[in-house]
């Protein structure tokens, strides 16, 4: 398995080169004015100003020249400077990625955990009220737009009840901890500031619930379907005939096998949410990578578009690798080679 992992890790840079090349070509051939966030509307008809801006940002060079220059910088770890934020794309990503990871990990823990429990219960009590309730809850979660559920939950828990804080990662009136990992729940603990830790957790609850509800909807339906398939298998009947307890049959015999197809979706969802949690990030003013990606695309911010593509591509490649490894653990019959 070690050789498999090393081989896959080595292939990642090559795959990323392909992804970067495609992203470069597509973004540079998309209709639009990349100077939209550089030259003001008032000045955009001034040829002198436009020429100066193009020269400053390297847009006066031919496309092949820009491509070679980008790759040369990329090799040295320089992702370029964002047209929009005017700071290094690497710095932009490092500032935002931990915020997104913190949110996505919390949402995945909540969503996957509750999704598996609901899926197992729904399959075990098929066509019983608990099944109907679980399916309805899952369907609602996966079909409710997050901007709607986010605003409603904010209104109820923040505005009406006042139990949880509004959008943001931390109370803006407080002093944020020094940037160490970028995960506020960790940085506040490292700083020994338990009040700020509590505040960061408070702020994490609602967005993680909203995002996790969607994940839960997807996971619970998949687990239920897989569990129903597995529960009708002969080895389950055999296990029950041998007198195995119901919980042991469900968790050790059925769930372990039912989880194999679900792992793919969990891995895919995790990778997708790294750049795809944009609506949750917008509603909860969460300064993450999703909203950065959308703003980059809207403004034709080429360096940021490619930077985010690299992050998204890496997330997908690593999550695929992690899924393959998890397969091997979930089902010992699978051998990675």
């Amino acid at each position, binding site marked *: 398995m070690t050789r498999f992992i090393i081989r896959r890790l080595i292939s990642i840079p090559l795959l990323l080169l392909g992804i970067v090349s495609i992203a470069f070509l597509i973004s540079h051939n998309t209709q639009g004015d990349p100077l939209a966030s550089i030259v003001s509307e*008032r000045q955009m008809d001034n040829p002198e100003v436009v020429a100066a801006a193009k020269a400053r940002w390297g847009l006066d060079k031919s496309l092949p020249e820009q491509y070679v220059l980008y790759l040369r910088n990329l090799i040295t770890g320089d992702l370029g400077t964002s047209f929009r934020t005017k700071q290094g794309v690497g710095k932009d990503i490092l500032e935002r990625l931990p915020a997104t990871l913190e949110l996505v990990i919390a949402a995945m823990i909540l969503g996957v955990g509750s999704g598996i429990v609901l899926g197992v219960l729904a399959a075990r009590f098929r066509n019983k009220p608990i099944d109907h309730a679980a399916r309805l809850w899952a369907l609602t979660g996966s079909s409710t737009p997050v901007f709607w559920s986010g605003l409603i939950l904010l209104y109820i828990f923040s505005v009406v009840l006042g139990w949880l*804080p509004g*959008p943001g990662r931390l109370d803006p009136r407080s002093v944020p901890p020094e940037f160490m990992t970028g995960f506020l729940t960790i940085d506040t603990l490292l700083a020994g500031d338990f009040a700020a830790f509590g505040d960061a957790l408070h702020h994490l609850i609602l967005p993680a619930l909203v995002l996790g509800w969607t994940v839960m909807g997807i996971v619970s339906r998949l687990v239920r379907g897989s569990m129903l398939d597995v529960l009708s298998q002969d080895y389950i009947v055999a296990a029950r005939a041998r007198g195995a307890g119901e919980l042991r049959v469900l968790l050790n015999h059925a769930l372990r096998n039912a989880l194999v197809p679900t792992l793919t979706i969990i891995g895919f969802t995790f990778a997708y949410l790294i750049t795809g949690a944009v609506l949750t990030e917008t509603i909860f003013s969460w300064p993450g990578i999703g909203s950065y990606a959308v703003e980059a695309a809207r403004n034709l911010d080429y360096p940021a578009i490619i930077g985010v593509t690299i992050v998204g591509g890496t997330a997908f490649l690593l999550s695929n690798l992690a899924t393959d490894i998890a397969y091997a653990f979930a089902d010992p019959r699978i051998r990675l080679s």
Partner: protein
Amino acid sequence: MGTIRQHLRVAAFLSASLSAVALLPGAAAAEGNTVVIARSFDFNSLDPARAFCDTCQIYLSNAYESLIGLGTDNKTLEPRLATKWTGNADQSQFTFTLDPDAKFSDGSPVEAKDVKWSFERLQNLKGGAAFMMDGVTKIDTPDATTVVVTLAGPNSEFLNILSAPYTAVVNSDVAAANGAAAGADAETADKAEEWFLANSAGSGAYQLVSYKADDEMRLKANQEYKRSKLSVTDVVFKHTKDAVTQAQLLESGGVDIAMQIDPDTAKTMNTDNLTVETIPSYNFLYVALAPGAKGAPKLTKEVREAISLALDYDGIIDFTVGGAGTKVSSPIPTGFPGTEGLAAPQQNLDKAKELMAKAGVADGFEINSEFPNMNAYGVDLSLLSQKIQQDLAKINIKMNLTPLEFSVWRDHVRGDGIPLTTSFYAPDYYGSAQYVQFFGMIEGQPWWNRAGGKNDASITNPETAELLKKALAATEADKPGVYKEIAESMMSDHIIIPVVSPNLVLAHSKKVTGVRYSACCNLLLNEIGVQ
């Protein structure tokens, strides 16, 4: 089943843990008076010579100072860094005397060399607001507190321009030491933009503590600022994109001021602890016609007038901002010099049909309308375009609507042109010339280009150009009269047809005082207090 009961216990424990988290103490607040402001950031830079956006106006007017300020009536020019100024007879040379007590945030005095350096940098960097230094040919500094600015020709609006926050005076020694350049080669030599993202070098009431794009900006009171007593020690701007989220944050006490709540959302708010005021603004949205655009139908002057008469202006205000807006007579917004007494636009379908018939297009035509897919000053441009589509259908004009991302719209409007589009404008300072220079059908000016002036010379209006020269040489007393002539001249072009000036919602906690709308600067923090 006993085991299932155990699992239920685990679930109950997890729920209790979550509840316990909700009971954890909140974070320690910063000392002093902190005001938190929710606003959707549109920063393009924090560098005074490059920044050009609504939020930039707020930042620059609070972290820096201009030579001249704008009074609370949004019209009168007041001393700021310059305690007095004089102009020569033909208004082509201005002499400013600086406040000898003015200090930058590092304690060093604001001197004439800083003013000269800042203006030259603004001009030579060719950034967003470089046009404000158009016509400046020479800046002399006979002593540390005197600045003499010489222009290529008369410009009666130069003093108004200097009240814009974009003409901020920067601490030249500090900025230069951090890579800033102001010389003729500044556009390549200057390397300070990133430094300005983390530092300010001004004499304004506040100074930059930290800035995180798309997240927050923190300011603290400038201890060297003596122009007024500051009752707020720290200001935090929170990037909050959505108007509803801004409203919820304000209602829940998460922020003290919300800057972009639209009038419809404002009506739904619980105002027990809030002040929610709807006031007129100088921002406006307009329809722009481009007779010279590729694929445009024949948009003669008669047809353009017919279009302007077909629009249901009252209906547009109701439809887009729930009635919380005003009509705008000319491309110079109501309240600016030259707009007094101008007739408000009215729908007149009979006359519109008559003009269409006279132009030989009684049966109408199809016209493509591309517009930025966004919300500007509380107006959804899609809604606005749909309403215009309905109105123009009444004179048999079929509008084909295409919403575009702003960057794509810019590409199209600068390229082949867009036969009919909608857009928006907010003032850069109090003065009417900016509108003439942007919207006037004067050869080479922005909207002359976009309307296809190069392809259709008939849209050029030499009268506007002549009147503008006259206005720039006019005395203060004569300016309103000349600008009124210009406004009427621009209205007769029917190229730029203003449709609504949306009201501005000032929403803040009742404990916050002094919140007002400033035409140059949006929000002045030094006037804000906390009870």
